[in-house]
């Protein structure tokens, strides 16, 4: 009698030591693994669902300010250090890792309007409603007195430090460029008469800076020149701008008209992208260090994250207690988002809501990467799109968004009707991007 048996050499499949790799014999014959598209689609769907399941972005809050947080500054060399200034003139330094306040300084009378750090990270500057510029040591000192105080003629509303040199810029009635060792500005720029409430240095082309003025314009300056370079006038005023840290000529402006505008500074007549989703004025914006995304905080009590090249936000963060978000920051390791809001709290969020923090094993990492790839591959499919886009938002935001949509639709409808009932060409089609730009002035 012949007995047929399966035989297998154990050497082929058993590993010799614990650390040896598993030899898994695989047959990649496509006929053995059919329905690849369907199966991957299902996997992508599951991955998308799981992403929503694991989306828990809120990490914690920094509690300590006695008044609304008005401004924040990242430490240039320390990821765990954060500076924040509140409406009662207090500056606090935070350790993000321990979520503790390491130091609090009563710096100004009235608002702390702006904060910035020296690129070396040893000093920081603050401006306040008491029209002073104060320089502080980062290290704790007993007296809590500023190293240097500059008393200006007018109120300074914002301050930003040069990315390399010992130069900083302030703005109020005009944009001033200061040398830290001098008591007078080395240069001043004015264009128009209105107050300027934000100034930002370009991180790449470090001598460039941009400012937002109350007369609805965004002005660009070259620190080396005597006069401002150019400006763009928008429908409504911009609250602040943020430069893209990877692309030197791209900046995004947070506007009062609920939108954010990404501009190419070489061509200001039309924004590169309009980012809509907020339902109230956008108060602050900050770029991710990768330059691919930015975060915005709005008066509508929400924080949104936009891809640079997308018109719609990919994420919205809100909590029941969070009030108007006055300032947002994106951490320099691209993992966290910080928001300071009116109700005195600074909140720490994950930059990607469902991302697993901490050490991952290679297999897990590979699985995550595969999921991400699948989600990207099938993101056009309506089922996936619906799930990944689905968010619960506060009722106020939801209804406001609905109202806005109705308004927008109504406007569109009216325009199309007008076009329909008038001579062809009489009502020209103006692209959305051009609608919000009033003028570009050189």
């Amino acid at each position, binding site marked *: 009698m012949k007995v047929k048996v399966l035989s297998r050499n154990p050497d082929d499949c058993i590993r010799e030591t614990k650390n040896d790799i598993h030899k898994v014999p695989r047959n*990649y014959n496509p006929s053995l693994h059919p329905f690849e598209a369907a199966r991957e689609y299902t996997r992508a769907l599951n991955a998308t669902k799981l992403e929503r399941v694991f989306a828990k972005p809120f990490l914690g809050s920094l509690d300590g300010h006695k008044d609304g947080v008005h401004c924040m500054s990242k430490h240039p060399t320390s*990821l765990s250090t954060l500076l924040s200034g509140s409406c009662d003139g207090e500056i606090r330094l935070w350790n993000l890792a321990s979520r503790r306040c390491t130091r609090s300084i009563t710096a100004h009378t009235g608002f702390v309007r702006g904060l910035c750090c020296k690129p070396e990270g040893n000093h920081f500057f603050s401006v306040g409603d008491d029209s002073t510029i104060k320089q502080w040591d980062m290290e704790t000192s007993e007296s809590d007195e500023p190293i240097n105080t500059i008393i200006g003629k007018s109120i300074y509303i914002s301050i930003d430090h040069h990315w390399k040199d010992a130069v900083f810029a302030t703005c109020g009635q005009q944009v001033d460029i200061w040398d830290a060792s001098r008591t007078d500005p080395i240069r001043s720029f004015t264009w128009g008469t209105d107050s300027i409430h934000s100034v930002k240095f370009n991180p790449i082309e470090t001598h460039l800076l941009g400012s937002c003025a109350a007369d609805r314009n965004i002005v660009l300056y070259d620190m080396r020149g005597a006069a401002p370079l150019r400006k763009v006038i928008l429908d409504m005023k911009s609250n602040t701008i943020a430069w893209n840290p990877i692309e030197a000529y791209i900046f995004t402006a947070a506007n009062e008209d609920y939108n954010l505008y990404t501009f190419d500074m070489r061509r200001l007549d039309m924004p590169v992208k309009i980012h809509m989703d907020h339902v109230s004025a956008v108060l602050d914006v900050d770029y991710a260090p990768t330059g691919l995304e930015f975060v915005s905080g709005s008066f509508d009590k929400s924080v949104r994250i936009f891809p640079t090249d997308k018109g719609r936000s990919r994420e919205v963060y809100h909590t029941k207690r969070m009030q108007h978000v006055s300032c947002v920051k994106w951490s320099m390791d691209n993992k966290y988002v910080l928001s300071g809001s009116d109700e005195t709290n600074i909140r720490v969020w994950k930059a990607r809501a469902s991302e697993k923090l901490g050490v991952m094993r290679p297999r897990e990492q590979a699985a995550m*990467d595969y999921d991400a790839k699948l989600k990207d591959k099938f993101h056009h499919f309506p089922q996936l799109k619906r799930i990944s886009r689905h968010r619960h938002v506060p009722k106020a935001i939801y209804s406001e968004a609905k109202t806005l949509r109705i308004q927008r639709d109504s406007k569109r409808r009216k325009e199309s009707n007008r076009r329909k009932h008038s001579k062809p060409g009489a009502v020209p089609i103006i692209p959305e991007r051009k609608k919000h730009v009033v003028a570009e002035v050189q």
Partner: protein
Amino acid sequence: MAMANARTVRLLSSGLNDRDDEDEILTPKEEIVSSTEEEEDSDDELKQKEEEKEFKHRSLLNAIGALDGRSRKRPRSEPSQEVSVYNLNTSPGTSLEEEVYAVLHGSKFAERSNHELSVAEEEALKAMSVEEARERRKELQKMRALQSYYEAKCRRQKKIKSKKYHRIQRKAHDRSEKKQLEELERVDPTAYAQLLFISMYFSSQERLTLKHKNTGKWAKGATRFGKHNPQSVQAINEQLQKNKDLTTKISATIESDDEEEEEKGNGGDWMKTDKGVSIKPSLSDINNPWFAGEPKIAKKKENDTKTDGKVYHKLQPITLKQDASDASSDSEDEQDVDSMKPVRKVRFFDEQNSSDDEVEIRDAKSKNLQPWQPLVKRTDTENGLKVDNEDELDRNSDDEEIEQENKNTPTKVSSSKKISEPVADEKEEVHVDPTKFFEIESRKIQSEKPDFAILEDDADEDEQRITIQQAFADDDVVSAFSKEKLDKVDKDKPKNIDLSLPGWGDWGGSGIVPNKRKKKKSAAVNQLPFPFTNAQQFERSIRQPVGQTWNPESTFKKLTKPKVSTKMGSIIAPITSEEAFEDKSKTKKGHQEITESGQMNFTKKQTKNQRKKSKGRHQNKKNHQDGNK
């Protein structure tokens, strides 16, 4: 009884006391009297046998002692006389009586009325003098001593706990065995074949059973609980190894002698391997259809194997034992002494039964022996497998003789070759059945032909048909041919390819009707997504799988590599103009690397300062996360 024997021994002549002395040397603490008891105590069979023989011997000596006249007073003759009287009167009726009668009269120990001594006593007197007996006893004692030494040695060796020692021993044993086998293969392929066949039998047995497969109660327990006990692990391993050893295939080829091949060179191809003749046909396989045609051969072979009788698994001549048994058998089979001479004794140990089979084989020179029996003839040398040249020569000549004699009677060796002959013959012969033929449409010629001519033809045809029938009896080539043709046609035909996938749709079973009312979720996009210009492009991109199921590891990694990877705790500084305008191919220190595929890696760059600091920061961040949890 032992006591009585001892007493009688004491009564014997003084020369026999030597033996007692010797016993004292062997077992100094034993009493002289209990010398026989000591023998009883020993558990060895052989010893027992010896004892029995000893006893017999002693009884003979008793008989001798009886001649002295001191023990003459024994009232032995009286009952016998009575019996004889009784016997005279009555003939034995029952079987028991018959037996008793036979014992009393037929036995050589029986007393005879007209003789003083019985036959046995006379024989004993003739056969053995006291001197001889003494000599013999000495010899036996020596043997016993040797044996006990050997046993002690064995016991000592068995007690050794060193595994290494045993391993070495075992290996040496295996080696010698292998050598023996090789020798056997060289010397006697047939015997070797038989050995192989037996081992194949055992291996097949092993394959059939679950023995040594860790399925037993003990093995299960050991694998479960004795995992950390090296001894049990080793035991399990040994078991598995045994299983493996038993189940591994044994190369089934034997080298056959060239001469033999030349002699009977008509063997079919089917039984030849590269090296020689495959053993299969040489083994008498009843199931083999090739033997079915010649039942006589098969039967004969069976008989032959029966005469061989035993299973010769392992050849292991043990000289000592053999000697001992020889020695004992001398006295035992006295009447066979003459006939024993041509017989050589070989001891075969069946490994499995471990019972010793003694086989006596007459010399191969006797003509009744079949030539495939040299199995024993060749191996029956005193020291294992040595073969005398003379013997070899004898064998060769014998074989030839037998060949000539038994040319018609198929032998085992040649049978394997002869069997194949009909195959060749069959191929040469063509059997045609004239009743079956191809019907080709005959065209009828429109002409008038006289009927008688047709009749004549018919007769002729009939005759021809008969001859053809006779010529090609009992095989239909035509049908075979048509069948072959049909097969070929079928082969050339396009076949239905089975497109069903293994496993797919098996769960639901057959005959499942999908619910019509159930909403179908369409997995299709409404619009063609942006970067694609046509549907095919998009579909192709979707159809191309990314997963590990379809791609090798490296490809999978490449495909799923994220476009942007950042490392937690490392600061990503803004790009600098130098980096932005640097030649990308030279970029190495750049804080962000944009690879060919457009993937950005932000994890690499850190200035020295940053790196130093970021270590600590990383730690902090970790703490941060922990705190958040």
